[in-house]
């Protein structure tokens, strides 16, 4: 791994799903990067492809299929990596926290066990024996597992689960939602990852817990230098946490750039729409549904700008023509057929 390359580099990612009704183009050529120690947010409405993008990065896009593009993590292309490399990557580099903590922990195993497993994988991703993991006596090192469980308790402490010692035997259903999400975080941290992908980690939680958890993620980022790719529909979260933001719409990156700039000065009509329907008084939970119209159903390759049907600036060309990428100042860019709407220098159109 060389320092001048980004930690994660997604280039022209396309992820499809085959269905009866046709091919669903969930991600249509998304490109972005995440640098070491950076927090990057992906924002978009439901169905914008942001979760699929995140899942593709850790190669859990099934039953979807990455049809083109590359995802380079620490310089390795994970789209072509074999099982073994993937295991190593997941065990020792990239971790993910999912949205709904009620369904992401296995209900029949103790939380400590699920964290301990992660520790075990991290220790040696290449040697995983089924009987060992099933704790079948002669094939399983009891003291090692006991040790892992102790470290799991430490991790539970670290992510802020109260009284972890008493919870060593607890099952997921005995945890509150916030505690489960912290447990997920602990499972992620167990692998000491360089990159944490957090897919709407706070959506299902109530407001105070959300704040605590985000605080925790920020601390981890600062203390451990762990990069974070945060998927959210909540611009407030983006504003609080992220260094850079990527606006995704119908599987395409509409606009990207540093959070500071973009929140003050959104250029793309879609980003503007997002921001407009986010008055300070709106609670974080609110959905980005205030823009008229609905997210397209993503079936078929589509042509033109996917946002065109909802865009107040849309002209005929937007619906049919190619969508160029337009470079903006401060390293930002946006995709739009009408650079003038972006207030951009026409020369920066790619």
């Amino acid at each position, binding site marked *: 791994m060389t320092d001048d390359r980004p930690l994660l580099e997604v280039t022209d990612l396309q992820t499809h799903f085959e269905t009866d009704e046709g091919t669903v183009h969930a991600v249509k050529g998304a490109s972005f990067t995440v640098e070491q120690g950076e927090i990057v947010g992906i924002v978009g409405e439901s169905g914008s492809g942001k979760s699929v993008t995140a*899942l593709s990065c850790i190669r859990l896009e099934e039953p979807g299929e990455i049809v083109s593009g590359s995802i380079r993590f620490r310089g390795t292309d994970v789209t072509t990596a074999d*099982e073994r490399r993937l*295991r190593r990557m997941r065990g020792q580099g990239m971790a993910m926290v*999912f949205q709904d903590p009620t369904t992401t922990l*296995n209900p*029949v195993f103790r939380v400590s066990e699920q964290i301990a497993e992660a520790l075990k*994988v*991290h220790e040696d991703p290449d040697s*995983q024996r089924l009987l060992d993991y099933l704790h079948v006596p002669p094939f399983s090192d009891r003291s090692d597992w006991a040790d892992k469980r102790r470290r799991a308790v430490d991790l539970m402490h670290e992510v802020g689960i109260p009284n972890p010692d008493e919870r060593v035997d607890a099952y997921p259903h005995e945890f509150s939602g916030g505690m489960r999400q912290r447990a997920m975080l602990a499972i992620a941290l167990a692998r000491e990852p360089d990159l944490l992908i957090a897919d709407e980690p706070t959506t299902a939680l109530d407001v105070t817990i959300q704040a605590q958890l985000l605080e925790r993620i920020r601390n981890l980022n600062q203390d451990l230098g762990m990069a974070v790719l945060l998927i959210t529909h909540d611009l407030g979260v983006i504003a609080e946490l992220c260094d850079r933001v990527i606006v995704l719409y119908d599987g395409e990156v509409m606009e990207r750039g540093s959070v500071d700039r973009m929140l003050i000065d959104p250029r793309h009509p879609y980003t503007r729409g997002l921001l407009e329907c986010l008055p300070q008084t709106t609670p974080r939970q609110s959905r980005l549904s205030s823009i008229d119209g609905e997210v397209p159903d993503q079936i078929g390759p589509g042509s033109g700008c996917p946002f065109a049907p909802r865009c107040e600036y849309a002209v005929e060309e937007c619906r049919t023509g190619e969508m160029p990428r337009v470079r903006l100042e401060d390293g930002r860019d946006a995709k739009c057929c009408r650079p003038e709407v972006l207030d951009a220098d026409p020369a920066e159109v790619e």
Partner: protein
Amino acid sequence: MYRFILRRAVSIVFVLFGVSVTTFGMVVFTPGDPAEIVLREQTAQNPSQEAIREFRAEHGLDDPIPVQYLDWMADVLRGDLGQSYYHDTPVTTMIIRRFGDTAELAVAAILVALVISIPAGVISAVHTGELPDHASQLGSLLGVSMPNFWLGYLLIVVFSLYLELFPVSGAGTVRELVLPAVTLGSGIAAIITRLLRSSMLDVLEAEYIGTARSKGLRERIVVYKHAFRNALIPVVTIVGLQFGYLLNGAVIVEIVFQRPGLGTLLIEAIFARDYPIVQGLVLVIAVLFVVSNLLVDVAYRYIDPRIRFDGGTR
């Protein structure tokens, strides 16, 4: 947990009461006067009216039916299931003598079923739509449609007659157990395979499977540890409820393989119209069945920690 068992036990007592009334009624309302049958058997003569009257009075057969029921229940609770019309051996003894053989068959059949169905169900789910899946689906369809009384004979012809691998009949040794257990287990295997397959398919879609994969766990561990344990929950219920199936099937299989278990005893008693034996057996079987269903409920709660402590979430 204990409160739950207690509550179930109370409702079970009611069911058992109903069961006992039914089985009692079964004998009271059958044709034929037990006094006459027993006396004829004892003396080899058609008894006189007087002898019948005496016998009835002596054995309380003229008491009001509720009184007879209470007497019978009192005996049953003491473990006395009555006396056969034709044999001197108490019904309880006859049942105990035959019980082991049926229990052995039942356990072996369940083992056979698990050995076949667990790999078949899991592989079928993991390779949905592929050849092994089709094979196991077809196999289980045949398995549930194949009459045991025919399958038994086919197995005898193939494995006993042509291959000479197992004895044709009898009981006692492991070799004599194989074919009956396979016959009886096949149907259960088919049921479990189908259930395990669909249960695995459901579970493999669950988000925690994604979590497990995202940890970097091997697919084998994901499937056999994380998915399997969850898929097992509905399966355990069904396996437990197959106890009734086992008892049903034991009758057929014991007849086919000439095994002297409870099933053969029941058929013999039915053809002998020896109703005290039928009554005792039905009662014992119903009690076993009800209790086993309770045990399944308890086991179910044990496997699924979500409902382990919070009582009857159903």
